[in-house]
């Protein structure tokens, strides 16, 4: 039931999020509250191929391949390379820096895109 693609190493995170959305009700509620829209990721790998994933964090918590959720098209699309996506997920880069340097393109409401970062990387050190 893997939704990641081996040609896109960073897409593994979608499996992780899928697992979490499926098994952790608290996480799902929190994520929906935080993001509150359908987000699409258009990743480009080293070979120049592109592939899309969506997360419906508006209602259902559905996640899968493709740019359109069953509930409809995405409210926000994030376009970036697989490599930069991996950096984003691993906390080596942050969305606003990628956005500023043009490595992350956002179609739709940027404000909504800011919330998704918190879902992608949850393991944050605590004071």
């Amino acid at each position, binding site marked *: 039931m893997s939704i990641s693609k081996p040609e896109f190493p960073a897409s*593994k995170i979608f*499996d*992780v999020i899928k*697992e*979490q959305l499926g*098994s*952790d*009700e*608290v*996480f799902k509620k929190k994520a929906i509250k*935080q993001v*509150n829209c359908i987000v699409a990721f258009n990743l480009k790998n080293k070979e120049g191929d592109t592939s899309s994933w969506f997360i419906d964090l508006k209602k259902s918590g559905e996640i899968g391949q493709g740019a359109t959720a069953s509930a409809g098209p995405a409210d926000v699309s994030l376009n970036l390379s697989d490599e930069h996506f991996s950096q984003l997920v*691993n*906390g*080596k880069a942050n969305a*606003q820096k990628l*956005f*500023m340097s*043009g490595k*992350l*393109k*956002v*179609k739709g*409401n*940027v*404000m909504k895109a*800011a*919330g998704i970062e*918190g879902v992608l990387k*949850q*393991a*944050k*050190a*605590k*004071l």
Partner: protein
Amino acid sequence: MSFMNGGGGECSTGANPLAQFTKHSAIDRSLQHERFQGGSPSSMMSMRSTPTEMSQHDREAMDSFLNGGQPQQANLGAFVFENMHQELSHINSHERETYMEQHTPSHSTEWVDDFHGGSGGEVANWDQEFNRKVSTPPLSTMNRNSPGSNMIMSRPGGFGGSRFMPSVRPTYAGGMMNNSGPHMAMHTGPLMSSSTATHANVTEDHWQNQFSQFEGVDIVSDKGKGKVSEVETATQDQDQGLKLQDEEEIQDLSDPTLDLEDDYKDHFDQVWSNMKGQLLDNIDGWKDHDEVPTWENTIAKPVVGDYEFDDTENIYMDKPDAFTIGCQLMDSGAKLSEAVLAFEAAVQQNPEHVEAWSRLGAAQSQNEKEELAMRALEKCLTLDPGNLAALLNLSVSYTNEGYENAAYSQLEKWISTKYPHIVEQAEQENKARMDIHERVTDLFIQAALLSPEVANMDADVQIGLGVLFYGSSDYDKAIDCFNAALSVRPDDPLLWNRLGATLANSQRSEEAISAYYKALDLRPSFVRARYNLGVSCVNIGCYQEAVQHLLGALSMYRVDGLQDDNDFQNGNLYVTLKRVFMAMDRPDLVEKVNSGADVEAYRNEFDF
């Protein structure tokens, strides 16, 4: 923290005899700029960076130069007065000529008076204005970099940034504004105003006040400026035009392909983090934008509810001195879950026991159970709104959960309880309208200034400042604060963990790990530090070690004779653990977690 920024003040006019001179040349240059296409600003820059101290000899040389005489000595070190002198006298004579020719006598005399006033050391129109701005207390430079303050100061600050030197003091640039050309206005106009527009109305007010203030000043100095006023009228017109343009710019900002220059990056960073911090906290509030938001109603607070006790039997329930037992357990380094049980028993025996609630909250947050910690601390504060430890701990918990503004308001309560005179003083200065982060940071800086010596420094003030800077992602400053606090309390495991977490979040995982180890040396049962250690190991790709630390932390939840699997699936630790297993490509282990396997079940594969 307080000693870091001493330098700013002396660099301004007060101690520096050359400052007068710098201003002098600045005035000339701007006029020349309108007329002659200007020279390079490099000569000014070298003047700005001159040392504070000036020998008597140099002072004489400069005096004689300013009075029109020859420099006493050809070699004056770093200051090449020859060129400046020629330039200046050239401007001097030329300007006087043109003004005499072109303007009515009254205007020109005024202007010349002004001019002489400046050179003669007397404080004239411009000087007054300039000095007034510079006389802001030096230490306020400290929070210049915080987002809020930059919002307010942004316009003049942006000037300096784009035109002269990146870190020019905004006050100085503010003085420059009156006689600056239209280019500068265009440089800063769009981005700054869009930032303010997206910010709350409060800042907008500040901005407009400041803007109109500058306009007012323009009119005053126009009297003496003659021809320059024409240019300024043009500038104002242009500004009006820019205002319209600004609105388009705001729209543009949501265009992802917008390519912004590096110059604007810092400003944008601040705007972004502000938006994230304030708007995301309260997206609902943002929708009802019609009413002017006061800070009190924009502060989003997590709804946590009442503290829930475990159903399991509590072995301390029958002990009359459960609170004392809890304190002893904490001191002796026992498992935090045990201490938690003792404190839970204490508050169940006596629900009004403020200190027990406070300690329970502190223990739960160290035990990596933030939600329960917040519930206990809020309960504590309903009983005793001025409980300092609970206020500080709750602000930390809110920060961890991403409710920065709620955290700041707790810190404000903390400081007004502990240092009421500072808050009173600030209220008199009418700072209430400032952005909450800036306002509270200001209060904490004032408090830190009370005792700058390490010997009697209040470590809690440094912690508060650290949390404030952490909340605004000023991690380097936060690290300084926690280090300062550690110089007072080197044996506080909480502080080491806070330092570590700040380092980790500023991408310094390796340094963070050594800070966590320090915390764990001091308190081996510190679950949060162990969890953080695991997170840092994940971040540097050491999955095996990460699993060991996470399992080690989980094993701390096991208390003899008790099964604590209440939040088996939901806890932060399990979520992170599953994530690491996914990263290791071990779905079988994820399954194992989901099936609710005991921590001991991993012993065959992991050493913890």
